[in-house]
């Protein structure tokens, strides 16, 4: 091949340019930590990275809302625990004052305590978590059990709608429990609030027989609280499992996206070293080949 000066210089320009471009790209890959700067770097992986990241975000959102539902159920459980304790105490008082040896004044004292317990139960039934009353169904805005003293006290103002929260894309889990049957206006003659009210009335009336008659209702109420707590526990388990599964799925998708796009630092560092060495060699060779000329030897 005939070597001309323009060939020498254009080859030098081209080859050093290529070597510099390769070194530059290798440096960018190492400094950015990702091998995909533009979809054309790997079209299939680019699409997958977006899909994996979207999927990861979706699972992270599910995990976060399931955690909120779980926290709310935890508050629900605490409220039910309070109601259960109050009912147990009311039952103790009913057993105690169904004994005919107590005086009217003592039963009146008991009635006072039961009134307090009734208030405690209603207060627990009106437990609020954040902006929402946990026992009101979907009627979040107002206390579901009427706290106003009077004939409507303890009436249920909520609805019977289930609230559902996603535990996986398209899969829902109920995140509330419905306890409208504990209200004073319930169809159940032995509803919790009716029974506690009846106990209070019996104690005030100093009627040990009527006091004793409330025991069945109180037992039924304690059982209802216990059963409801079991439902809450089951839901919490479902949400806790969902949180864990969604976090794992989110993490897995992030890893998948990362595998597609992130660089292997060892490999890319070696590549950087290799391209920089190639650039040095190219520059040295160019400098050397440009040096040699007949001009230096002619006098």
């Amino acid at each position, binding site marked *: *091949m*005939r*070597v*001309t*000066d*323009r*060939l020498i*210089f*254009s080859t030098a320009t*081209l080859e050093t340019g290529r070597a510099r471009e390769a070194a530059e790209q290798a440096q960018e890959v190492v400094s950015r930590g990702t091998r*995909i*700067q*533009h*979809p*054309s*770097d*790997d*079209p*299939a*992986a*680019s*699409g*997958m*990275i*977006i*899909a994996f*990241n*979207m*999927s990861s*975000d979706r699972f*992270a*959102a*599910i995990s*976060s*809302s*399931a955690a*909120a539902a779980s926290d709310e159920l935890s508050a629900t459980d605490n409220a039910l625990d309070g109601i259960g304790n109050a009912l147990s105490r009311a039952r103790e008082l009913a057993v105690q004052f169904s004994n005919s040896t107590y005086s009217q004044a003592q039963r009146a004292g008991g009635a006072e305590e039961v009134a307090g317990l009734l208030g405690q139960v209603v207060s627990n039934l009106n437990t609020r978590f*954040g*902006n*929402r009353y946990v026992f*009101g*169904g*979907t*009627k*979040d*805005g107002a206390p579901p059990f009427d706290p106003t003293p009077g004939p409507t006290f303890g009436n249920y103002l909520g*609805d019977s*709608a289930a*609230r*559902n929260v*996603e535990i996986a*894309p*398209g899969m*829902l889990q109920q*995140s509330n429990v419905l306890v409208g049957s504990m209200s004073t206006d319930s169809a159940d003659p032995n509803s919790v609030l009716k029974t506690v009210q009846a106990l209070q009335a019996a104690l005030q009336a100093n009627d040990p027989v009527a006091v004793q008659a409330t025991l069945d209702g109180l037992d039924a109420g304690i059982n209802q609280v216990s059963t409801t707590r079991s439902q809450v526990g089951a839901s919490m388990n479902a949400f806790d499992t969902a949180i864990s599964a969604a976090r794992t799925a989110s993490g897995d998708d992030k890893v998948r996206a990362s595998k597609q*796009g992130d660089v292997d630092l060892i490999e890319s560092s070696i590549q950087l070293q290799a391209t920089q060495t190639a650039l040095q060699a190219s520059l040295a060779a160019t400098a050397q080949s440009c040096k040699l*000329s*007949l*001009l230096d030897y*002619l006098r």
Partner: protein
Amino acid sequence: MANLLSILSGAQTSLAAQRALTATASHNINNANTPGYARQTAVLTTLTPAEQVSGAFIGRGATLDTVTQARNRFLEAQIPQALGNAAYNTAESDALQAYHGLDPEATGGLGSAISGFYASLTSLAQNPSDAGLRTSFLGAARTLARTFNRTSGEIESARSGLDAQANGLTTQINSEAKAVAELNVQIRQARGTGAEPNDLLDLRQTHLDKLAELAGASFVPTSDGDVNVTLPGGVALVAGSHSGTLSTTADGQIPTHLDITFTQPDGSKLGILPGTAFGGTLGGTLSARDGALLTSGQRVDQLAYDLANAINGVHSAGAGLDGLSGRLLFAGLGATASGAAAGVTVAISDPAQLGMAGAPTPPATVAPGDASNAQFLLGTESAALPGGKDVRSTVSDIVSQFGSSSATAKAFADQDGALKDNLTRMRDSYSGVSIDEEMITMQQAQRGYEAIAKVIQTTDQMMQTLLSIKT
């Protein structure tokens, strides 16, 4: 016997020939870095007729026969095509590489806006009466709409940038075509003197190379020495001493882009030329504008249209906290997908109006905690859009398809660039100037010149000897 004066005369001519040799070497050295220059060689020949003396022929020295150019027609015939292809793919690749709106790792892209929308909706579905979550979801919906607006705007902006580039290129092409037409005339005139106008041919070749690079033009030499230039679509850009003119005009569409119109070398108007009528940088620029970028823009429009309509369909069935249903979440959509991404906005400004609850049957009112419609809205994330794929796969496809088009253009640009570089290097090897060679030629000419001077000196001494016989 040879005449001493004829020896001197022959020496004089030979000196001139050596000077021509040096001058040509000097011209080569001067143009060693001139693009398109093909090295020239001064061809010396024996001066005839030789003098016949006593039955023998005695030579009369050397003279310059011609100055030739080192041109490899086989290589040069391949170069315009290679230049055009490399320029086409490089222009397309550069244009697509410069658009980063669909980068997979970029923050604030379509993927993350859609994810953010559904993440906010997931939180709101868990607690639809929370005013903060409602506001946050409305914000996410606005972000989604603005991301569609921005993505569409960026694509259009990239396409408008290519319009500006195409406009500049047409001016350059016109100027190069005019230069070729003028050189056709000058070369014809120069050839009339009987000599080959090497430097004019070089200059014309440089302009032809430029036209191949700018417009993918091909060339047809004519029998009278002109070169006619044709665009890839078969349109004549240069015919003899006349050149056509490209100009740009608004296409009347919204958004507006440029059409390229053509006035033929004979002055008649040909009207609008399609993008396929051009190769080279202009063809690549138009291909990027009307190919991958346009397709990506249309697909983003289609996604915005389908997704917004799917969400609107579900949202309008739900009720806001005021109990009213039938509201659309997204507005700004027309009857077709065209322009949907640029126009989509959020129709609702009051978070309370977000239709997260099922529509109540009067006299029932909306329960603030009712998220039944929010759950249906979440279903749009995984439901198939009219295109047959869900939103995630659609976004993924848009990115992959754009990436694939860019990667193909880049691969072709690299491949054609390598071919062009190879041919150019081979041409440089064949036609380029070697300073070493020229130095040797100059040395050779110098030696010859010195030797001829010695001949003159010797002849002069002989003449003096002859003249001194009488005195």
